[in-house]
């Protein structure tokens, strides 16, 4: 043995792997071996500063020092620069917790993501994990539900419905069997917070689901993960095995009389399965056709039984709330948007990634401050907030605060918290056409306004783009949008007009470009 073992942290998050984190980990191991140095390579989730991935951290005197973005080819030079002691190198960034992105965040839900080994239950406990569940087990079910209600937590999947109220309904329902279903279908473009959480701290989701089970009296849970996330599904399955071995799941949750079993189910490439009733149909093994509501899933959900359906982030926020108290969570935020939101900065942005902070921050702070503007260096022309069904907002609306009501007031929605940045080369008529085409492709087909309307919408956009009788076709577009908004059974058809109409409202020049005819001359 030469010197003491140095801990080196390399992410296993799929985004980090997508830019070479695995090769970096291998290179560090090989280089250390060749130099006779002892390193303990700990694989973690991602800190969320995705533009710095692969981000390697070294523990020096109890503090983590960051280097990034590291390529496998940089590793030998990092050793030459004595990075194991925090030495100088062009990729040296300084202490991770002091990097510009970190101190301004409030990491409640993502506290451990990027910090701990996602599959070590011992690390999880050591970093405050299971405190919420332990506390919940000492409370009456109604008290747990009340804590979640008092926290002000609203569903992070898109609709923003108060989580505590949903749980209360399920608690009050009489049934032999109840279910907790985690919606991990995360289909919205521009979103990856669920994925990062499942890969970076799966135990916090498991703990949140166990708390929900204890609160409402459910004994079985399912996590429905989209098939596009094979890495997340694998991590969850391993975490569930570890949680069973550790007594968190199974016949007795942490030694209590509550039984709770959990299973991962993988989707099959349908965006509509993110809609909760469609998801339930899919879990039941059927074609994922949306169900009419009522009955609410809370009363008649999976296999007709009372069911909590919540997004990954909603469930994963609960352990913090139980551990630190509802008041602490409700103590940050703005208006009726309490607590923190994991925001995802994506698309054409210089510094993209995940930022968790209290509601109330402006889109501009996020896009320009955290994000540093566009990756291409061109002006920001539009941001789409809230996924493919969310509005396109122009630059002058970037001062809108991150808040469910404030976004609704400007004709948008928060959705699952994704912000996709576009530069000045974006063609908003094409984006509007894409919104219809996407809806046509992903519609479950149950109702006509969505199934037929989306196809008609794409055709109408084709005519507008081709310059055919624009005023008349824009009227058709408006009528169609009204019809889809008013008469669709679910938000797939009901919200597709949001990106379309926001594009038309804020970027009318793209729907009537004189340049088109001029360019043709």
């Amino acid at each position, binding site marked *: 043995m*030469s010197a003491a*073992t140095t801990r080196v942290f390399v992410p*296993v998050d*799929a*985004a980090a*792997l*997508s*830019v070479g984190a*695995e*090769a970096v980990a291998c290179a*560090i*191991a*090989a280089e*250390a*071996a060749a130099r006779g*140095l*002892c390193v*303990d*390579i700990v*694989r973690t989730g991602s800190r969320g500063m*995705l*533009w710095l*991935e692969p981000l390697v951290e070294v523990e020096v005197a109890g503090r983590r020092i960051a280097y990034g973005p590291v390529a496998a080819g940089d590793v030998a030079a990092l050793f030459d620069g004595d990075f194991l002691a925090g030495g100088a190198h062009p990729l040296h960034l300084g202490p991770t917790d002091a990097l510009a992105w970190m101190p301004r965040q409030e990491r409640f839900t993502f506290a451990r993501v990027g910090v701990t080994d996602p*599959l*070590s239950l*011992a690390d999880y406990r050591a970093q405050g994990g299971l405190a919420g569940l332990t506390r919940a087990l000492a409370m009456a079910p109604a008290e747990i539900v009340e804590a979640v209600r008092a926290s002000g937590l609203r569903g992070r999947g898109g609709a923003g419905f108060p989580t505590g109220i949903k749980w209360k309904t399920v608690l009050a329902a009489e049934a032999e069997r109840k279910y907790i279903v985690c919606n991990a279908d*995360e*289909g*919205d*473009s*521009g*979103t990856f917070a*669920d*994925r990062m959480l499942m890969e970076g701290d799966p135990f916090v989701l498991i703990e949140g689901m166990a708390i929900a089970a204890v609160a409402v009296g459910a004994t079985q849970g399912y996590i429905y993960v989209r*098939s*596009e996330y094979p*890495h997340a599904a694998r991590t969850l399955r391993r*975490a569930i095995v*570890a949680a069973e071995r550790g007594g968190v799941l199974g016949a007795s949750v942490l030694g209590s009389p509550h039984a709770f079993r959990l299973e991962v*189910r993988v*989707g*099959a*490439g349908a*965006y509509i399965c993110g809609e909760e009733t469609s998801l339930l149909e899919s879990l*039941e*093994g*059927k*074609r*994922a056709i949306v169900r009419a509501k009522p009955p609410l899933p809370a009363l008649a959900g999976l296999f007709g039984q009372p069911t909590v359906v919540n997004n990954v982030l909603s469930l994963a926020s609960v352990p913090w709330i139980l551990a630190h108290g509802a008041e602490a969570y409700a103590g940050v935020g703005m208006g009726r948007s309490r607590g923190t939101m994991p925001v*995802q900065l*994506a*698309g*054409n942005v210089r510094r*993209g990634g995940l930022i968790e902070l209290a509601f109330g921050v402006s889109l501009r702070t996020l896009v320009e401050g955290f994000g540093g503007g566009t990756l291409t260096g061109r002006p920001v022309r539009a941001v*789409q907030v809230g996924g*493919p069904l969310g509005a396109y907002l122009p630059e002058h609306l970037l001062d809108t605060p991150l808040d469910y009501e404030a976004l609704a007031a400007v004709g948008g929605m928060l959705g699952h918290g994704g912000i*996709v940045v576009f530069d000045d080369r974006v063609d908003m008529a094409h*984006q509007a056409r894409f919104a219809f085409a*996407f809806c046509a492709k*992903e519609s479950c087909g149950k109702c006509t306004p969505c199934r037929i309307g989306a196809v008609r919408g794409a055709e109408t956009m084709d005519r507008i783009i081709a310059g055919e009788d624009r005023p008349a076709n824009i009227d058709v577009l408006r009528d169609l949008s009204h019809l889809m908004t008013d008469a669709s059974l679910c938000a797939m058809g009901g919200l597709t007009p949001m990106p379309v109409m926001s594009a038309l409202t804020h970027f009318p020049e793209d729907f009537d470009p004189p340049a088109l005819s001029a360019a043709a001359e």
Partner: protein
Amino acid sequence: MGGYAPWNADVAQQLVARLSGLEGAMLPVLHALQEEFGYIDSAAVPLIADALNVSRAEVHGAITFYDDFREGPPPARIIKLCRAEACQALGCESLVAELARSRGIVVDQHGAADLVVETVYCLGNCALGPAALVGDQLIGRLDAPRLMALCDGAAPARVQELPPGAAGRAAP
């Protein structure tokens, strides 16, 4: 990818029997069959219907509803290319055009070719787009040269396999 077992009714029967006791077993069964054989043979439909006590029409309905399930043997290689908004903002459509121009590859066209490039909408890598998925390997910051190399059969990087609860260790 590749390396699928040829269709075998006995193996299929065993797979179905092993999973049929699950609640809502249909999707797990279909995934298991596709993982084994690369697709869901029509001969599997009555096996599934019997085991799950549903009609053949329901089984067929499920197979056709979901984009993931294939009814015939898959091409040797599949590249799933993200074409959703965040990747659009970073020029994924120019990659589509480049495929057509330099390789004559039409996205989503399934022909005799042993390579198919398929459209997907979002892979959860929207801050590091354009993104693609090859097998279980996610790829970020995809550009034309890298995409062409993938088309030529370049291996995507190795997938991390992490044993539960264990950190990777390297010591002399």
